[in-house]
């Protein structure tokens, strides 16, 4: 990073079904919480970056820059960033670029999504916008289907058993129980996951992250210092469709972004103590821990087995917040929520480094952020 960028404030709404709140209400709540938690006032904010994917379909609302800016008294300039589920981390990355260049000193980064005002069918089709409309969509594929294909191939290549895969969601639910902002604060057993309704063979209902409303906001600043510093902010991109990739059981965008991020932070992977990873489907969590380097290909499940047994010898603590499965997945809010959660656990345990890994589509865009806790 060319400048020291600090996490000056952060706040979020609870993720879940907020029938009484609009997209604007959700953003307002998260922004209020972020400003309240920071040492600065609303007037210190030079710029807003808003990440959102489904405003047009979920709320009939485009032009979110202006909408968000009007929530602050002095209407700072605002831009909207979209890259499907990675919108959150792309918004953060954009904000870092403004801060590094010196164009802004304090940036409010917001990720917000309102998904429950329209039917699940409409949202499922809209989410397919994150895949290739010409290659993937015509056959009738949906996102659970894309990850169903990935899971079936993964099981074939590495011999992963269905019952083993069920551990992943059980771990995430167990962690979400402790998180007051999570959508599902109940534990589930791996057996319950294996028994749940089939969605896209071999993936079952409890392998999939839910449709959620929610917003998360954070204030990044080069001016207002705090104990959390952004040590790295990197993005990487892969082909939009699976059909153009040599392998579907590994995501090269994740590998590229993580490698660049570790270089930028000038640390080794082993120094990362906490990981918030993008577990939109349980199989994705396994592939992610492998691609990030915490397990060999095909052995991601061994990390989750240790997490399930709450053993201390896990190479990294994954999704202490509950991940996308436990917390819910309001598309663009997720990337920012991950930063907030990493900051929380670093402060809680007095650890130094944590990594947030967020991707869009089938890891066609990937954002990796490394946070450093200076009081550790």
């Amino acid at each position, binding site marked *: 990073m060319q400048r020291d960028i600090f996490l000056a404030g952060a706040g979020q709404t609870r993720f879940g079904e907020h029938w009484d709140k609009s997209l604007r209400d959700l953003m307002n709540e998260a922004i209020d919480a972020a400003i309240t938690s920071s040492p600065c006032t609303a007037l210190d904010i030079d710029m807003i970056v808003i990440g959102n994917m489904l405003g047009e379909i979920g709320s009939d609302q485009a032009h979110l820059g202006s909408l968000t800016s009007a929530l602050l008294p002095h209407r700072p300039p605002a831009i909207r960033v979209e890259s499907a589920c990675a919108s959150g981390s792309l918004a953060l990355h954009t904000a870092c670029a403004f801060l590094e260049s010196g164009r802004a000193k304090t940036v409010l980064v917001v990720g917000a999504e309102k998904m429950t005002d329209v039917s699940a*069918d409409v949202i*499922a*089709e809209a989410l*397919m916008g994150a895949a290739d*409309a*010409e*290659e*993937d*969509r*015509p*056959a*009738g*594929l*949906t996102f*659970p*289907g894309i990850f*169903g*294909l*990935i*899971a*079936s*191939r993964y099981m*074939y290549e590495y011999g992963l058993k269905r019952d083993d895969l069920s551990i992943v969601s059980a771990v995430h639910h167990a962690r979400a129980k402790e998180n007051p902002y999570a959508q599902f604060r109940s534990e589930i057993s791996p057996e319950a996951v294996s028994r749940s*309704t*089939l*969605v*896209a*063979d*071999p*993936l079952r209902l409890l392998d999939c992250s839910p449709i959620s409303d929610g917003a998360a906001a954070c204030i990044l600043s080069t001016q207002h210092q705090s104990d959390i510093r952004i040590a790295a902010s990197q993005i990487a991109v892969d082909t939009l*469709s*699976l*059909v*153009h990739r040599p392998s*579907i059981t590994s995501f090269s965008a994740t590998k590229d972004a993580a490698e660049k991020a570790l270089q930028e932070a000038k640390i080794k992977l082993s120094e990362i103590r906490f990981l918030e990873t993008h577990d939109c489907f349980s199989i994705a969590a396994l592939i992610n821990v492998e691609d990030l380097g915490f397990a060999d290909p095909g052995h991601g499940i061994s990390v989750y087995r240790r997490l399930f047994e709450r053993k201390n010898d896990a190479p990294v603590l994954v999704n202490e917040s509950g991940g996308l499965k436990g917390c819910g997945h309001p598309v663009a809010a997720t990337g920012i929520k991950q930063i907030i959660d990493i900051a929380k656990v670093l402060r809680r345990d007095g650890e130094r480094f944590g990594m947030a890994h967020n991707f869009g589509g089938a890891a066609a865009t990937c954002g990796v952020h490394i946070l450093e806790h200076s009081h550790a």
Partner: protein
Amino acid sequence: MPDTSPVAHRAQKKLSHKLQNGMVLACTTLMHPPARVGRHPRHIALIQLEDHTRIIASVTSPLPIGAPVRPRMRLQTVNEEGLRIYDVSFEPVQQKASPMLDFPGYILALTGPAGVGRTTVGRLLLHMTAEVTEEVPITRTCPRKTAKEKGTHCVTKRAFTEMKQKGEIVAMAHAVTDTDEECWCGYRASDIERIWKKGKLPVVITETHLLQGLASHYGRRSLLSFGLLPPGRSKRTMLSHLLRRLLKSGERSQELVKRSLKQAERELAFLRDRKDLFDRIFVNGDLQTVVESLRKHVPMPKDSRYNPPARS
């Protein structure tokens, strides 16, 4: 991407590339596919084509990784403007479908929609050529009024399934009935081979699925296949002719007539689309003429009383 005409047109231009054989790399079954492609569970696969490009396409059944598949055009959706949009779907290349290499003998097949008079024509032909032909009894799982008539062999569902598993059934299809009960019919290899052993020509009075089954089992060249169409220039006149005949026979309930007519519509389309499966298609206008023409195609022993000898 919307299902509008320009989008469909652009997609259509790329379709020819997808018409290649391929291999399944990954397969999933979507229990709740998008409404635009229908409400039934949908099987979708990542397929590697022969030219090593990959595509995502629907497949006709859940397939294991590594299964060889071949393309076929399939109606994908009908858009709001009524445009029928087709896409390539893949079906497994059937491993068992190795048509017999040696020529086992001829089977005379008479195919046509219900009500066209194929039974009448067939029986008359059988009667006139009784010395050299014999009807292959059809094996079916549920009795019908006509069950007692000659040429039908009734078995239980269980027995039918067992025969199928043992590979004794060479062609099978759903039978049209007036109940909702699932009913299967098919031909046993033993029945056909018994007739060959007698030195006679097996005759099947059949429908499209059974015809395809026979063609894939014994090979197309073993079939002397004749289609029978009702008189009439258009589909509408043909169907109204069939309806008249179905009602006239009085054997069938109203529901069965309805189902038979639907089936007939499909079979008419089949006769039009799969001309390759027929040696000749006759229009059943005058019974005598049709039977006479058919008789000419029955291979007769030289010393037979029946003349003239076969011409093909």
